[in-house]
């Protein structure tokens, strides 16, 4: 069998303060193959953001292993090595641009940090800017362009060092509905073209069904995996599909899981 691209093996994260202990993620396991587009769906506070932050070495794990290409990458108290981080691109909920750099400098930031120099990388920056239509705004500062453009810049910043895996933390959650739909379609296009592995975090059921091949549903208190749903919908996905029968059934199925979680919370 093909080795999983990403594997979470019984991962637990516990935050401890003096007065309380919070289990943000409990005993979480999943396997993702190369080139898959999967979503992690759950209400706020279910630990989904913690999950991908552990994968990206921003937060330590408390227990369990995270493997990329079969190699354990989480080592407590140690920074994740650059060689691993280079395989990952992180897209934040907000554009998270550094306001003192131009759009181009922001996009090229990972190249500077990873020490990737040379004309081929410079060209890549230009290509990506071109791809998302930011070419003419490349020398603008982030406060001069719109939120949608900024988030596009955020997406290509995460891709500039050519990572194999994209981690997206509710990337379009801060945008208005229309821009968000458009961005989702653009994202699908990018994925189909590049074949990257994508982990997409969201609390929007429709978005999860529209984009991904598999949805991991998480619940709260403690944050844990509730259900895995494989979506058997044709690709390429289109916005028009949201009114089709299959789509609606999947949506209702996922809604029922999320609903159960909410009920259990009330108890």
């Amino acid at each position, binding site marked *: 069998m093909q080795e999983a691209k990403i594997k979470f093996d019984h991962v637990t994260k516990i935050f401890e303060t003096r007065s309380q202990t919070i289990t943000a993620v409990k005993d979480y396991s999943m396997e993702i193959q190369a080139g898959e587009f999967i979503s992690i769906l759950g209400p706020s506070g279910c630990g989904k953001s913690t999950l991908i932050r552990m994968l990206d070495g*921003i937060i330590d794990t408390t227990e369990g292993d995270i493997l990329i290409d079969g190699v354990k990458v989480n080592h407590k108290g140690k920074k994740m090595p650059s060689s691993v*981080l280079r395989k990952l691109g992180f897209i*934040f909920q907000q554009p998270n641009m*550094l*306001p*003192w750099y131009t759009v181009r400098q922001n996009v090229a*930031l990972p190249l500077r*940090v990873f020490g990737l120099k040379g004309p081929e990388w410079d060209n890549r920056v230009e290509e990506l800017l071109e791809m998302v239509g930011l070419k003419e705004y490349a020398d603008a500062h982030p406060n001069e362009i719109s939120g949608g453009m900024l988030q596009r810049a955020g997406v290509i910043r995460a891709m500039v060092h050519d990572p194999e895996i994209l981690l997206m933390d509710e990337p379009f959650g801060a945008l208005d509905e229309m821009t968000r739909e458009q961005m989702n379609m653009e994202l699908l296009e990018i994925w189909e073209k590049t074949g990257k592995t994508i982990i997409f975090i969201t609390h929007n059921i429709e978005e999860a069904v529209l984009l991904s091949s598999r949805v991991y549903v998480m619940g709260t208190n403690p944050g844990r995996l509730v259900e895995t749903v494989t979506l058997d919908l044709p690709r390429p996905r289109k916005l028009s599909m949201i009114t089709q029968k299959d789509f609606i059934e999947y949506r209702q199925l996922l809604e029922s899981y999320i609903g159960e979680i909410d009920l259990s919370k009330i108890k």
Partner: protein
Amino acid sequence: MNMKKKVTSIVAPVVTFLLIFAIWEFACWFYKIDAWFLPKPSEIFRSMIVDFGEYWPHLLVTLQCVLTGFLIAIPVGLLLATLITSFPLLNAAMSPYITFLVTTPLVSLIPLLMLMMGYGMNMRITTVVIQSFAVINMNACTGFNNVPTLRRELMQSMGASRLQTYRMMILPSAATDIITGLRLAAIFATTTCISVEYNAGNTGLGSQIIKYSQYLQTTKSFACIFYVTVIGLIMYGLITLLQKKIVSWEE
């Protein structure tokens, strides 16, 4: 509309200053106030120009003291703030003392510093440095400690080194707070320098203000005070220039 706004924001203060000096001038003339008590502004300005040769060396001494002290205080304050905020334990241990240093009028050390270091430039600059580095340090610490979490995570997600994180993200994030600190430090530097000159020796504008007021040459005292304003303006201008250069991305 915008043009009009711009014009008012220049004209209004000019008119105000003219008005203040006009009223002052008129009051002195109308009530026949003696020059030793309150000189006319016109007399003060005349003296600033006519007796410039007399003030010049002292202006230079004060300016040199304020500027040198200020320029030393900047790296001292910034380096200390960087060091303190780099280690959580040190941050916790030092934070009350940073406030303590700022709230203590370190000018009270002047008599002792005079004894240790004499009346010369070294002692004056030292006093200016210790009074003004503290506020730079405090503001820089605030800036460094309030860096948004998301920006930290961005640098972490790329595995940036400490130096890279500091240079690319932390320092620019704190720039606005640092500039605020510099602005305050400039005021502290000028104030402290005058306070030192009141006590130490007979050079510098502060010493001259005292000397002239003792001889009832109030016009000259005021001329010196206005030259202190000139120093304040120079400092203010320098920092505004720096601000435009460094935090140009704002606005």
